[in-house]
């Protein structure tokens, strides 16, 4: 079969027209999705922090509670999990609360704290106090902070 110049023009025209239709449809869909997104007020995210309807500022402040921990007794390390040896588990609310509780309890030899962005909501901001029988620490454990009385 021999292709004529006319067939060639028709094929190119078809591709251009098809592309234009697809682009228009894509842009329309993107505008529609954008419209849906803008119906949600900017500063307010859907509830996902245990169901709390929070502002983005709330979220920043909640995450900030994982960052600061001052202790003269415990050596604190980020991204470390100490498995086992738990004798108490409680909702600390902040890393500092976890550190303070461990400091005040002579039997607390170490602690592990799960951060505000832990993928399991029930573990977020939970503190585990540990006696002397804990296992070796696991490093590069994202979302966890651990501390030990004395040195590591």
């Amino acid at each position, binding site marked *: 079969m021999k292709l004529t110049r006319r067939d060639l023009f028709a094929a190119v025209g078809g591709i251009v027209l098809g592309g234009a239709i697809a682009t228009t449809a894509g842009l329309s869909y993107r505008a529609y999705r954008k419209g849906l997104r803008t119906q949600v*007020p900017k500063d*307010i995210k859907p509830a996902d922090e245990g169901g*709390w309807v*929070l502002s983005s500022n709330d979220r920043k402040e909640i995450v900030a509670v994982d960052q600061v921990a001052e202790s003269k007794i415990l050596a604190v390390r980020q991204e470390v999990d100490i498995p086992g040896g738990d004798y108490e588990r409680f*909702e600390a609310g902040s890393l500092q609360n976890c550190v303070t509780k461990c400091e005040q309890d002579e039997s607390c030899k170490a602690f592990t704290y799960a951060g505000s962005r832990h993928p399991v909501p029930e573990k977020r901001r939970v503190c585990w106090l540990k006696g002397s029988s804990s296992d070796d620490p696991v490093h590069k454990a994202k979302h966890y902070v651990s501390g030990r009385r004395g040195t590591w």
Partner: protein
Amino acid sequence: MLAAGGVGNAQILLGSDDGGAATAVGNENDQVGRYLSEHPHIYNCARMVTRADLALPATPSDRNEYRAAIVPDDETVEALGGLDLSIEINEGKPNDKDSVETFLISRLAGGARVFDLNIRCAMPHKPSNRVERGEGRDPAGLPRVKATCVIDSDAFHAADQCLQRLGENLIRTEKGRVRINNDVLYREAVGGGHIMSTTRMGNDPRTSVTDRDCRVHNYRNLFIAGSSLFASTGYANPTLTIVALAARLGDKLAEASS
């Protein structure tokens, strides 16, 4: 005059074809028993933390059985699909096991109050929710009835959206925060024990049983009283409306007889 309650009115009408009549009285358009409705009640489906100085309705101290509630404004009701609901507020104690709540309380200068929230909700009318004749007879000799009453997603979605709006308003005004417990909201609704709308009133005999004067369509001398008349259910207890409709009907009958 038929005044036998939300189920009884429909039950008596549905049983009226026992004598071999072609159709039960008032049921020429297969409307008797349809639109069976309840009041979905969803207890402890949300939590609210507010500033201590936020003005909220209070329960009168001598009326323990009453509960304070907040209701959406007309604009919000329209946005919720026209479904009426109320949010009952019960003051509680801080939950120190919820670290976000603890954080939010600690941040509210001047003190905080916490509340458990209950939703009481209207139910959209669906013709598939209905009372029908069942098998056998009850001890009073009336035909037994069976009921189908499904609370569909419109009611749950309205409750969810209303709580979300409440939460957003509290953020905008910096007066507090709301927590929505979806597990409870979508799984633990119960009925308020108010059975309504099984012989609802309306202008069109194809979609209702009685007219606006509580008279059964096409029957000159048959009237109905009770919650079975309700053309919409609202969220509030039905008794006051039942009494008002009965008083109105009484006036009309007295007027007609004189």
